[in-house]
């Protein structure tokens, strides 16, 4: 399996935030993780990126076991993350934020080309390339966070609630960008969302988390029609 989380548990101090979670995905796929507030979605992604210590279980990516690696080593293997709440570097220019995304790379020429590619994908960032990222609008910051993650040339992109707090037309724009990135750059995507409808439409398979455990998993199209999912996560 290309990417696999096997029986992973994560604790904050003594409190278990994620217990015995397993996920799998193929190269080039898009999977979604949905669930209510506090279900453990962010914690799962933090475990994958090495920010949260994995108490038990294993995480495998592209033939490497990564659950004991430091975050910077995991980035080097080709996993990048668009964190919840964007987390652009607020007092850095848009351009420098993008360069930070390419920090693990050394190929200067290609990095410059990739900056232009991000600008082609998100033209609004180009107009603001010298502006401090903290002064961008929410939608622009989200685009910057996605662009920054792409600058690492990831093989796997983890996105934590990219639609959070965005107006409906921006949510559609972000959804289109996710699909475009997946197809054009051949990047596998794990999409964590509260906007379950969007997530299920964009992904091929999905996991539903409840109180730190996988409550349901399956093809996204099936989950869209699942009675329980409709009632709990799609508003009827």
């Amino acid at each position: 399996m290309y990417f696999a989380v096997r029986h992973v548990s994560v604790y904050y101090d003594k409190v278990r935030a994620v217990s015995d979670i397993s996920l799998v995905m193929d190269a080039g796929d898009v999977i979604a993780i949905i669930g209510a507030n506090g279900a453990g979605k962010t914690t799962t992604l933090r475990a994958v990126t090495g920010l949260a210590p994995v108490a038990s279980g294993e995480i495998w990516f592209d033939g490497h076991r990564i659950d004991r690696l430091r975050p910077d080593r995991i980035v080097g293997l080709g996993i990048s993350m668009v964190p919840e709440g964007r987390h652009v570097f607020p007092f850095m220019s848009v351009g420098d934020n993008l360069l930070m995304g390419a920090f693990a790379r050394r190929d200067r020429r290609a990095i410059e080309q990739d900056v232009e590619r991000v600008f082609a994908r998100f033209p609004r960032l180009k107009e603001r390339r010298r502006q401090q990222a903290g002064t961008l609008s929410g939608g622009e910051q989200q685009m910057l966070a996605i662009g920054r993650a792409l600058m690492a040339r990831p093989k796997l992109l983890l996105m934590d609630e990219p639609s959070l707090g965005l107006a409906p037309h921006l949510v559609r724009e972000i959804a289109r960008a996710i699909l475009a990135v997946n197809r054009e750059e051949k990047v596998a995507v794990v999409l964590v969302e509260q906007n379950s409808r969007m997530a299920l439409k964009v992904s091929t398979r999905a996991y539903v988390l409840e109180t730190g455990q996988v409550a349901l998993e399956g093809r996204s199209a099936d989950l869209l029609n699942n009675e329980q999912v409709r009632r709990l996560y799609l508003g009827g």
Partner: protein
Amino acid sequence: MNYALIALGITLIFAIMGVLNFAHGQMYVLGGFVTYYVYGVFGLNYFVALAASAVTVACVGLVFERFLFRRVLRITTREESTMLLAAGTALLLDSLGLALFGEKQRGVAPVVAGVYEIFGAFVPASRALIFVLAGGLVGALLLFIQYTRPGRALRAIAQDKETAALQGVDIDRYSALGFALGAALAGLAGGLLVTVFAVNAGAGTPISIKAFIMIMIGGAGVVSGAILGAFVLGFSEALGYFFIPGSTTYLMILVGLIVFLIFRPQGIMGKPWG
């Protein structure tokens, strides 16, 4: 300019590690002594002595970071712990300095002889030299932080440590770099100023306090604030000593600072980091 070096050093450490380096003045004194020995006693080239000051103090900074601060920051999130540790390192360096170098005031001969006349004022050439050197170093540091890959990494850590790690920055390594660099700046400032004011082993604490004043004026952790704070303090001192006799100057500066902080506790540039 020298004040700017001191203020930038302590700012760098504070911004990267969240540690207020109480030992900054002691590091400055150590830098002064290294230059005193290498240049004043052994008679080597002044620039060799400066480099030796920078490297020695950077190593001290590295050891502190690696074996003390990194550990303490890992096991606790309480700010008092690092504050106490920082105060401890200051005392440690103070007593080590006393033991190694004695209580004597140590100065060195001017690096270059002669006097320039600038706008009607007479400036000794050696003072002009250290002014230019300090200015060059401040400029080089700012360019480094603004335009190089490691400089970007340092800024990223200061703004958002976890997100910096997510971009592939090895936090431990770059924190060590930031600490060493900040310490080196203190050492350089000591090596520069020992040619004008002599140093002695007890001179560290007042320098640390001046460094704190500067970053409080400017706003802690902000590069532009550090430079501004340095100039404000430098000018207040100069004005104070010119118009008011004796030691009242510092009393005035401190009172002024307290009043200022009441109205603007975050300093002039006070944002978390810039």
